[in-house]
């Protein structure tokens, strides 16, 4: 097994990503590193469980034709996953420079993919723009980094995925939020098997749950009337 490691490709929040070659194919080695701020005992449980979930969910999604990197080798003891290398750029780096048509197709594609994922009772847990890769040549989008993913039939988890995506756009490109979400929901409704309306309603509920959200305070309307 001729494995050739090329270079440190990216340093994520919890792992080091190394690019390499395996049997002539480009691969990615994802190594979950030890954290100096965590107690060693916690750290070990942590890295092990996250690696395990990620590998399990990646393979299930890959078999169901969701655009994710194919997992190739898993080493639980050292918290390493070796997976297929995906050509593409992070959506968080691209979104500011995308024209409106590009943005629309990307959002629609992402909606479709997310819908399929949720139909399999899988949630991502960290669906932000940095975890979405866009391949400019074949216009495909890929979802990556499933460390916080899991299985659930609770629509709450699906709604949180959409909520996180929404907030990540709001932080990075607030002016593109409306267009993006409109197309995302269009794609999502086409592929999600459950009740889309119910999920979207929950998304709104989660937003209102944030601290000091004034819309929650009905009295505000009364007060505004009084001022006028």
């Amino acid at each position, binding site marked *: 097994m001729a494995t050739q490691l090329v270079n440190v490709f990216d340093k994520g929040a919890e792992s080091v990503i190394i690019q390499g070659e395996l049997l002539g194919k480009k691969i990615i080695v994802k190594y979950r590193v030890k954290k100096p701020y965590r*107690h060693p*005992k916690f750290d070990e449980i942590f890295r092990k469980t996250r690696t395990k979930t990620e590998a399990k969910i990646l393979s299930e999604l890959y078999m169901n034709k969701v655009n994710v990197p194919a997992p190739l080798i898993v080493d639980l003891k050292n918290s390493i996953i070796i997976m297929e290398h995906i050509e593409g750029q992070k959506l968080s780096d691209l979104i500011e420079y995308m024209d409106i048509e590009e943005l629309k197709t990307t959002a629609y594609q992402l909606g479709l993919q997310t819908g399929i994922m949720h139909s399999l009772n899988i949630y991502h847990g960290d669906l932000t723009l940095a975890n979405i890769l866009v391949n400019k040549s074949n216009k495909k989008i890929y979802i990556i980094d499933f460390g916080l993913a899991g299985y659930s039939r609770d629509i709450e988890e699906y709604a949180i995925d959409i909520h996180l995506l929404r907030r990540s756009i709001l932080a990075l490109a*607030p002016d593109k939020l409306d267009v993006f979400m409109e197309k995302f929901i269009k794609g999502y409704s086409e592929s999600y098997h459950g009740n889309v309306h119910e999920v979207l309603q929950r998304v709104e509920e989660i937003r209102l749950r*944030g601290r000091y959200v004034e819309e929650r305070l009905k009295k505000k309307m009364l007060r505004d009337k009084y001022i006028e």
Partner: protein
Amino acid sequence: MYVDILGNVKDNIYILGIESTSHTFGIGVVEYNVREKSLKIIANEYDRYVPMKGGIHPREAALHHTRTAPQVLRKALERAGIKIKNINAIAVALGPGLGPCLRVGASLARFLASYYKLKLIPVNHAVAHIEIGKYLFNFKDPLIIYVSGGNTLIAIQKNKKYRILGETLDIPLGNLFDTFTREIGLSPPYVIDGKHQIDICAEWGKEFIPLPYTVKGSDLSFSGLLTAALIQAKEYKNNKEKLGNICLSLRETAFNMLVEVAERSLVLTGKKEVLLVGGVASNKYLREKLIAMTRVHGAKYAGTPPEYAGDNGAMIALTGFLSYIYNIHIEPEKAFIRQRWRLDEVELPWLPN
């Protein structure tokens, strides 16, 4: 720093800030010195309400504020060495916070502004916490970690607003520690000699026990952690060491969650500075964890010192000054309090990006 906007100002500028959002009634004064072209905090007086039992009772806290307000105001002016007629504007924290408490500060501010014919400047309490941190360490564009009894969030500045990247979905971190120590009978008092009860209790423990760890993307949830810790604590009511283990693990788990989302946000945004603000910023264990985390990513770290970490009037005065030079003010009759006033709603013209 503010020279280009203040080009033709001839006299020193004095802003008085009033803080009364929760347990603290505070008044601070800042001075902009024209000759030195510098901004200084020249007074920061406060009085804290400590409950006899239970948590903060809004009415009792408001009563405390009403009683101490004149004294705190007098002390602040004395410390600053100025008369009220020298002051250019009154800044007041109109929210977010507890209604009855906010009303005390707002009433005082409205009175001072209308009686002495001064400008009245509305200040968001959360913005003030961040601005004082940026001022103290001269940070321009940090990743902000704001942790207190009322807030737990991660934010960055973008398009003249603070944008929230992640926050708690239920209770804040400060509230988690306060509630836990209260329920197991240690608090009040919540803080002894600058040390929180949770840290004192954690010193009794040696062993780590697993507790629920809930991170959803960049959002956090502490309520499950609190319940689980309380259930375990009930079993070991009289066992000091076992109780210590729970405190130790509770603190470790909660901080790990926060540091993890902070780290993720740091990588996502690629910021070079990390700023910890809010009451919990004085906790040395959180500080240690964040220093270790930022070192890995080569970012600068700073946390507000205890004097300015908790609620105080100086931060309101400082934010008031920034608003003053951008001509933000309201009529006293329209200065309503806002119990719910989110950080990301406030438009801030002084932000560089």
